[in-house]
């Protein structure tokens, strides 16, 4: 089928006529932005074919707001070499004509013919819906609907099946229903995935297990119960036998007999023990007596020992005394030697002292002489110094006075010079013999005079000349000079001097006196650095020492004289001996005397000890003698000897008796008898206890069994076993049913799968043809409804299978288009018209997939006419066809050429 021309008028967005001509085989690409009218063109084609022209439910075909419009669509197409022209007008002026070659069909007839031709149905009433669309519904993909395949295929199933030319109908309808029922019933009993029991089957198994457990538990209880019953019988039998026989009575009698024999043996043992105790007492008293006798002997021996000791002590005392005498004589000698040495030492020391005193005396006397001489010289110097100091003090003039005098003299001189400069000079040269008088003083000869004040020159004879010096200040200068003179003179007067020169000379004299004083003082200092008085004191001190030395010497001499009077032999000879030697001899003598004294002391101590030992020995001997001499001692000794004899006799008798008794006891074996008593007693006790325990056990078992019996264990077990048998039967039935269902389901599924694959092979081939372009090696299964099933691809880890519904949107869209192209191929092979319309598809595909899909589309376009509408013209540029822009077509108006 090939669409060649399309004309629309008053159709939705196209109020004005729009005609598209020159549509060609293969892909026809229409482009335009959103709302340009792409989908409207698709809607026009769909309406022309699918909607009845008489339909009242197609108001939406009118342009918006134009209630009177009659949407019109005209289509030219060719099919199997025949040209068709369909013209359809809706709503206002309803009309439908179909020109087939030279034949024309009108109205419903035309529409029914088209439906038969293209493979769709018309709605009974109202607008056509997807379930009526058949093949067009599958091949004409509306915007955003490419990924939906199942429903469109469902609506086109009949046509596809007839195209497959096979009895697929049976598969999908009757067989499908049966297999669904089988599967549902199987899945009630088994889990779909693992085939594990579920639902009522699992419940039955659980019940069976629970009942089996309870039967088992009851069996255990019953076993216990039966054991107790058996035990009860056994115990009761034993108990009754015991009660009749009383086996413990015999043992009790034997126990009594053994006990009597044991008591006999025990009394024998007691007698033996008593005798043995007595024997021990005897042995102890014999021992005591023997030690008493030993004590008496010992006392006698002690007396002898004391006597010998006393003799020895006396001997020791005598020898100690001898030793003391010897040491005393030696001590006397040593003392005498020591005294002599001491006297010699004294002598030597006195001589030494006398010589030293004499030397000191000489020295001091010489010193006194020196000091006396110095003293006289120092006194002379002192007198001189005093005189010079007095003179100096008399000639002293104060520095201020001298300076004032000198200043006043200098100013006076200055004033006199000024006066001379300013004075009237009167030079004269008088003839010889002539005289005159100037200012009252006679003048002769020649000379000059300076007048500083009015002066009268009397010229004898001639009268008088009053000269008045010219300078006004002269009188002033004169006054000032006079003032100064007065003040100078006052000072001089105060000082008692005649002139300033006197003052100067006096100053010089003062200096000279001071120098003299200093010289004298220096001399004095040299002679008596610490003053004259000190010198005198020193002299006095020396004199005192001299006196002392003289007195000491005197005393020495007196002493010597006294000594000399002693009858001392050779003392004078030794008097000159050196002191050191004398000291050494004295030391030796003293040490020797001390050593001898030490020995003597030791000898004295030894003597005292010997005396003490002797005294003690004497006392002890007396004591020992007293003990022996005590009057009761002899009686005691005799008694002890008698007692000893008695005790020994009794011992012998007792030993014989003990032997006899021991033999008797040993024969009786009381230990074995004791064991017999215990053995028989215990046996009896055990039997009695066993009897009592059995009685208790009987009571206990009775109670337990009565309690357990009331539970009706066997009946409950029988009931549980009954229920278990029923449950087991149900399990077996369900297992059998489940197994049969599972088996049947497996068979049906396998058979159906094989059949489906066989029948669908042509469709599968077409599908694979396209699929290989997109996913090499992949398989897209087709289910019995001819819808795409799982897609199996070679993934990263081997074959991976995804259900169609689980694929991504993009992949589903791609698979949707591939499936449709395959259906189209199938239909075409069956001689059915195919026109493929794709409105804005593959917008969710990535670049790679889109490129592959374009190869797919291009390939399909070699067999089918494809109208492709897109708002992404750039994506489809490489399809090798020139796009038609809807806008351009509109602008061109009707009869736009291709």
């Amino acid at each position, binding site marked *: 089928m090939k669409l060649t021309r399309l004309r629309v008028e008053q159709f939705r967005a196209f109020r004005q006529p729009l005609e598209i001509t020159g549509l060609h085989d293969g892909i026809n690409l229409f482009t335009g932005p959103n709302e340009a009218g792409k989908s409207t063109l698709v809607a026009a084609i769909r309406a022309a074919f699918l909607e009845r022209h008489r339909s009242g439910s197609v108001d939406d075909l009118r342009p918006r707001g134009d209630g009177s419009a009659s949407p019109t669509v005209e289509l030219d197409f060719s099919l199997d070499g025949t040209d068709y022209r369909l013209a359809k007008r809706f709503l206002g002026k309803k009309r439908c004509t179909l020109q087939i070659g030279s034949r024309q069909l009108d109205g419903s007839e035309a529409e029914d013919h088209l439906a038969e031709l293209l493979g769709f149905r018309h709605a009974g009433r109202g607008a056509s819906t997807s379930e009526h669309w058949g093949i067009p519904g599958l091949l004409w993909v509306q915007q955003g609907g490419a990924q939906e395949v199942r429903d469109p295929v469902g609506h086109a199933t009949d046509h596809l099946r007839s195209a497959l030319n096979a*009895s697929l109908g049976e598969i999908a309808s009757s*067989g499908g229903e049966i297999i669904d029922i089988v599967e549902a019933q199987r899945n009630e009993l088994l889990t779909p995935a693992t085939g594990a029991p579920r639902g009522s089957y699992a419940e039955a198994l659980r019940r069976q297990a629970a009942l089996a457990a309870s039967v088992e538990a009851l069996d255990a209880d019953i076993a216990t119960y039966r054991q107790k019953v058996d035990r009860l019988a056994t115990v009761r039998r034993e108990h009754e036998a015991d009660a009749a026989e009383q086996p413990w009575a015999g043992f009790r009698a034997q126990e009594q007999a053994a006990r009597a024999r044991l008591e006999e043996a025990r009394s024998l043992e007691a007698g033996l023990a008593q005798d043995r105790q007595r024997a021990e007492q005897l042995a102890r008293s014999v021992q005591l007596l023997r030690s008493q006798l030993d004590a008496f002997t010992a006392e006698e021996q002690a007396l002898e020992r004391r006597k010998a000791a006393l003799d020895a002590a006396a001997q020791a005392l005598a020898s100690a005394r001898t030793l003391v005498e010897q040491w005393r004589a030696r001590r006397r000698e040593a003392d005498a030697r020591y005294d002599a040495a001491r006297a010699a030492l004294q002598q030597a020391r006195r001589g030494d002292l006398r010589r030293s005193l004499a030397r000191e005396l000489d020295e001091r006397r010489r010193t006194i002489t020196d000091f006396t001489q110095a003293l006289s010289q120092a006194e002379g110097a002192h007198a001189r110094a005093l005189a010079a100091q007095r003179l100096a003090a008399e000639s002293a003039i104060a520095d201020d006075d001298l300076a004032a005098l000198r200043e006043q003299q200098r100013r006076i001189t200055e004033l006199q010079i000024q006066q001379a400069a300013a004075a009237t000079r009167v030079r004269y040269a008088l003839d010889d013999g002539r005289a005159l008088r100037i200012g009252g003083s006679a003048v002769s000869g020649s000379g000059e005079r300076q007048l500083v004040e009015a002066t009268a020159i009397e010229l004898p004879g001639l009268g008088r000349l009053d000269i008045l010096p010219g300078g006004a200040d002269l009188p002033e200068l004169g006054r000032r000079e006079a003032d100064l003179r007065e003040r100078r003179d006052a000072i001089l007067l105060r000082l008692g001097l005649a002139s300033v020169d006197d003052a100067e000379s006096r100053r010089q004299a003062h200096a000279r006196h001071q120098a003299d004083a200093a010289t004298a003082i220096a001399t004095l200092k040299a002679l008596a650095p610490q003053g004259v008085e000190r010198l005198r004191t020193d002299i006095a001190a020396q004199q005192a020492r001299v006196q002392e030395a003289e007195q000491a010497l005197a005393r020495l001499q007196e002493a010597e004289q006294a000594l000399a009077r002693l009858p001392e032999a050779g003392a004078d000879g030794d008097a000159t001996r050196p002191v050191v030697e004398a000291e050494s001899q004295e030391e030796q003598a003293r040490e020797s005397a001390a050593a001898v004294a030490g020995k003597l002391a030791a000898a004295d101590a030894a003597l005292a000890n010997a005396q003490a030992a002797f005294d003690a020995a004497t006392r002890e001997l007396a004591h020992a003698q007293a003990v022996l001499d005590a009057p009761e001692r002899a009686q005691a000794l005799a008694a002890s000897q008698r007692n000893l004899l008695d005790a020994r006799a009794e011992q012998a008798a007792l030993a014989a008796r003990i032997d006899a008794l021991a033999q008797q006891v040993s024969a009786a074996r009381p230990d074995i008898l004791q064991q017999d008593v215990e053995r028989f007693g215990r046996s009896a006790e055990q039997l009695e206890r066993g009897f009592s325990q059995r009685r208790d056990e009987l009571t206990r078992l009775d109670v337990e069994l009565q309690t357990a019996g009331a539970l009706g264990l066997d*009946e409950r077990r029988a009931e549980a076993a009954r229920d*278990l048998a029923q449950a087991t039967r149900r399990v077996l039935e369900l297992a059998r049913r489940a*197994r049969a269902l599972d*088996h049947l389901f497996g*068979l049906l599924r396998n*058979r159906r799968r094989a059949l489906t694959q066989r029948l669908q092979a042509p469709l599968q081939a077409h599908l694979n043809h396209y699929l290989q372009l997109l996913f090499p090696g992949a398989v897209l299964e087709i289910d019995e409804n001819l819808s795409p099933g799982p897609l199996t691809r070679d993934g990263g880890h081997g074959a991976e299978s995804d259900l169609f519904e689980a694929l991504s949107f993009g992949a589903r869209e791609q698979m949707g288009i591939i499936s449709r192209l395959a259906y189209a191929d199938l239909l075409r092979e069956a001689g059915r018209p195919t026109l493929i319309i794709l409105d804005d598809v593959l917008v969710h595909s990535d670049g790679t997939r889109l490129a592959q899909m374009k190869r797919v589309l291009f390939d399909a376009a070699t067999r089918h006419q494809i109208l492709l509408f897109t708002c992404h013209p750039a994506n489809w540029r490489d399809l090798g066809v020139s796009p038609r822009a809807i806008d351009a077509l509109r602008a061109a108006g009707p009869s736009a050429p291709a």
Partner: protein
Amino acid sequence: MLHLLHTADWQIGKQFGQFEPDEAALLAEARFRSVESLAALASAQRVDLVLVAGDVFDAQGVSDRTLLRLFNSMAGYAGPWVMIPGNHDAALSESVWTRAARLNAIAPNVHVCLTAEPLLLDGPGVAILPAPLTQRITHADLTEWFAGADTPPGMHRIGLAHGSVQGILADGIDSSNPIAAGRAAQAGLDYLALGDWHGCRQVDARTWYSGTHETDRFRANDSGRVLQVRIAAPQAMPDVQPVSIGQYQWLGESAQLQVASDIDALLARLAAFGPADVVQFALSGRCDLAGLQRIRDAVVQAQARARSLRVDMGGLRIEPTPEDIDALQADGYVGEVIGDLRAAQGVDGDDGELARDALVLLAGLLDERRAREGAA
């Protein structure tokens, strides 16, 4: 003349797990009801006494309620009952009998012989020589003492025992609790009433097994009876008459199907079952789907009439005919599956049975579908 009833093996408390719960409950209930019938019979016949030869209870541990109910069921006859314990309810040191005594369940007219000593009933003038079981199993003949037991002259000597008479039953069956053959004659008994054998059976002129009063198994052994014994005078030969007392009859039947008429016969047999019948039916042979359906319908019908009907079709091979297949409208792959299953059921053993099950199942489903479509 001494007139007594001889019964045994009541097996009170027995449960029937092989049946559906409602059926099982009725069968257990019937054991009490038949005791009541027995008591009523005894009253009606005015017998001198009733002998119960052991296995009164199915187990020692029946519930107090069951125990009490049994003795209540016996209330319909006020004359003497003489019973001994059997191997199921042996007189152990603690037993159902000691419990019954504790519960005061045993009426004064009921004599339970727990020891081997003569029981003298002055009224009817009978000396009962009982051989009660005091252990579950004994290998000694407990009736040994009968011969040596002195009984008052002029009194009937009646033995009462539970066990297997030697040489009568097949070797190896219940060989424990032996009873010497000819014991009645050897011990000078007028009659030896035996229990343990669930079918009614005469051992010798004076020795009988009464069998259980209410049938409890499918083995055809003539059970559900009570023996009515009349003895004219001591040492006279007893007159023994079995009387049906049981409520249900247990039928173990089988049929082999080969041709269509076999099915007709089977259907006729099924149609004959009534409310007293407890039936176990084993089918073998072969049949087509239509026949199978007929059998199924008939079984459903029969199950509604019989007390219990269980049909085992395990041995039946289903062979659909071409007509069957056509009728099922199972062409295409379903038809292929039917073919597979038909072929597979010929295999012996498990797989064959599985195939048969699957085939029956599929046929049922297809038949249902056809019925549905027919109705639509």
